[in-house]
Every structure is written in structure tokens, then in C-alpha cells.
């Protein structure tokens, strides 16, 4: 019996600056498009960073850019879908660079499966999360948002991805209308769980496992602290 091998290379990058992560993704997308590399998943965190999507909904930024700088945060305009959001330490980020055509997924199915990935992670910790209603993509616990999604798809290859709040400093969200949805709170796993959380590294691994399972990979190659110039040739 022949089993189709679905390989995923997982890069654990620690804390990485937004622009560097973006450059890396662009390189990986090009390589994935030409078939030089297999599906790749980046697992990382960012220093305090605000990002805007393709629609540049700057009206959802409630402070000036210079005030952001004085808070020690960066602001970036990106090509992903979705509205404004915040990324920071203690928030688990996954950027999958995968071929949707290989699995026959459209954008909607891809985003739904990313939502399921975060919902499963939450349930591992006894937290009942659910996907948002129409127009409110992301993962919610009740009326509080715990996970955000914003992706880009180019010739069937994905980039950008998801951000799951483990225990970030939620006050940073007060300076934006998160994802353009007013009157809804942002929450974190820490807030929703009664007991102590396990080590963050474990939670990052769990998120990766949920992704691997839901996207049907059966061969995982781990790459820790890869040199960013690794994929030169």
C-alpha cells in the first residue's frame, strides 16, 4: 500500500523582527512556487509591532505613529488580508508557506482550517473557543478574541498566517480597533485558563502539532535557529 508523503519543514525562529520575517517569507514563497522547497511553517514571535493589511485601514490606529515609536513599537503596512492588529512577545505566530493547490484548498477552507488549529490548541487547555461569525474571522472565546488571522495567497502559495495570544501584554491592543471590530475585547490563554499555563515553548509546540494534524502532514522536519541565508542556492 502506497502512502502519499506530505512533508512539512518547521522553522522555530524565536523572536524575529517583522521586516526580517517578511523578507524571509518572500524568499520562501518564491522558492515554494518554483518547487525548490517543500511546504514550510515558520513558528516565531515578534517584538511589539502593529501591522495593517492591504486595505490600509489606518483609521483603526488610535494613536499617532510617533506615539507608537515612543512605546517601543513598530508599524508596518503589509499585503495580507485583514485589518489592523498587534503582535508582541508571548503571542504565538505561525506563518505557513504552503501550496494550497497540492491539497485542493481555496482561501475560505484554508482560513477555516487555520481557525480550527487555534480552536484545538485552546481546547487542549480546557478553553472552549469558536470561529467568528461572518465577517469576524478569527478565534473567539465567547465575545473575546484570542486568535487572529491574516493571510496572503499568491499563485496558490500562502504567506502571513495566524497569531494566538498566549499571554501578551493586552494593553497594546488599546491603541487600535483590533481587526476593525469595535466593542469586542481581546483575550489570551492566560486570562481564560484557571490554573498555571505550562512553559510557552510547549504551547508553541502544541500549536505546531495541531497545524500538522489538521493539514495532514505525516513527515515533519524540524529546523531550529536556521541561518536566514540558508536557502541561498
Amino acid at each position, binding site marked *: 500500500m502506497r502512502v502519499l508523503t506530505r512533508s512539512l519543514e518547521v522553522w522555530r525562529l524565536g523572536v524575529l523582527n517583522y521586516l526580517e520575517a517578511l523578507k524571509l517569507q518572500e524568499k520562501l514563497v518564491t522558492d515554494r512556487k518554483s518547487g525548490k522547497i517543500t511546504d514550510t511553517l515558520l513558528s516565531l514571535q515578534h517584538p511589539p509591532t502593529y501591522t495593517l*493589511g492591504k486595505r490600509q485601514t489606518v483609521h483603526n490606529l488610535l494613536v499617532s505613529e510617533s506615539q507608537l515609536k515612543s512605546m517601543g513599537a513598530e508599524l508596518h503596512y503589509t499585503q495580507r*488580508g485583514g485589518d489592523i492588529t498587534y503582535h508582541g512577545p508571548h503571542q504565538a505566530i505561525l506563518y505557513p508557506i504552503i501550496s494550497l493547490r497540492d491539497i*485542493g484548498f481555496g482561501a475560505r477552507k484554508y482560513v477555516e482550517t487555520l481557525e480550527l488549529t487555534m480552536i484545538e490548541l485552546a481546547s487542549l487547555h480546557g478553553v472552549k473557543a469558536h470561529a467568528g461569525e*461572518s465577517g469576524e474571522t478569527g478565534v473567539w472565546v465567547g465575545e473575546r478574541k484570542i486568535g487572529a488571522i491574516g493571510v496572503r*495567497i499568491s*499563485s496558490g502559495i500562502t504567506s502571513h498566517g495566524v497569531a494566538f495570544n498566549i499571554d501578551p501584554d493586552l494593553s497594546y491592543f488599546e491603541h487600535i480597533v483590533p481587526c476593525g471590530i469595535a466593542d469586542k475585547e481581546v483575550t489570551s490563554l492566560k486570562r481564560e485558563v484557571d490554573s498555571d499555563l505550562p512553559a510557552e515553548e510547549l504551547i508553541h509546540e502544541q500549536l505546531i502539532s495541531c497545524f500538522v494534524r489538521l493539514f495532514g502532514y505525516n513527515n515533519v522536519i524540524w529546523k531550529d535557529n536556521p541561518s536566514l541565508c540558508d536557502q541561498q542556492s
Partner: protein
Amino acid sequence: MAMRMWASSTANALKLSTAIRPHFSPAFSLSRCFSTVLEGFKYANSHEWVKHEGPVAAVGITDHAQDHLGEVVFVELPDAGSVVSQGKSFGNVESVKATSDVNSPISGEVVEVNSKLSETPGLINSSPYEDGWMIKVKPSNPSELESLMGSKEYTKFCEEEGGH
């Protein structure tokens, strides 16, 4: 005439979108995923369609594509006068937090852009072959159309591609 009425009522029963032009009645074939595929159009394997109408060709995305994208909330299109190339991106659509590039099935000069899409991007979902057209191109190389798929091939392509 009878064909058109049958097509239209069947489509209504199955809740499919059809594009019925007054001067031409298209036959449509049902793919397993119940997306509409129209005769007389050509299709790229990245799910864009092109319809040659005299000196100009209209371009958009297929019913299969819009169904897989979900509700379109924003469309970015090039300016009239820009040049597009076969297989290269000319714009993108945003749906459910995903921005997806749209590739041009042919090369040429953009002569018209569908300005209705900035107010009503959902036209791409409700009428992907008619009101949801994206750009009109003056083809620089009409023979490129021959490398594209016809409706039967495209239907088969969709069925084989993903099974949903």
C-alpha cells in the same frame, strides 16, 4: 430559447448563478462541486476566465474560484493603460482575511477596469461571469487563448483538483 429557460430554472432550483446574455444562450455543465462553467469562455488553471469580444477580452474569476474564496470584501485592480502578462498577477481580491492574487490569462493592455467592484466587491460572488468582470484587455497576442482550457477541460480540471 427552450434551452435557456431550462438552464435558468434548473439553475434556480440548484441555486447556481448563471450568466444569460440576451444575444447568446450558453449551455453550462455541472461539475461535481456544482460550480457554473460556461461555454464560449476560456479558462486558466488558476481559475480565471477570459471572454474575447471583438477587439477586447474581458477577464474575471470563475464561479469555482469565488466559491472557494468566500465573500469578497475588497478588490484591487490595475489602472487602465497598464500592461498585463499571461500568468502574471494583475490584482487581488480580499475575502475572509485572505488576500489572493488574481493572474491574467492573457497579455495585453488594460483598456477598462470594472469600477463597480470598489463599491460592490460582492458582485464577484453573485455574478462572477457577468457583472463581476474585473478588467478588459486589448490582447497583444490573441494566440495565447489557444493555450487555455475550454469549458469541458476546465470542468474536468476542477473535479480533479480538489474534490470539493
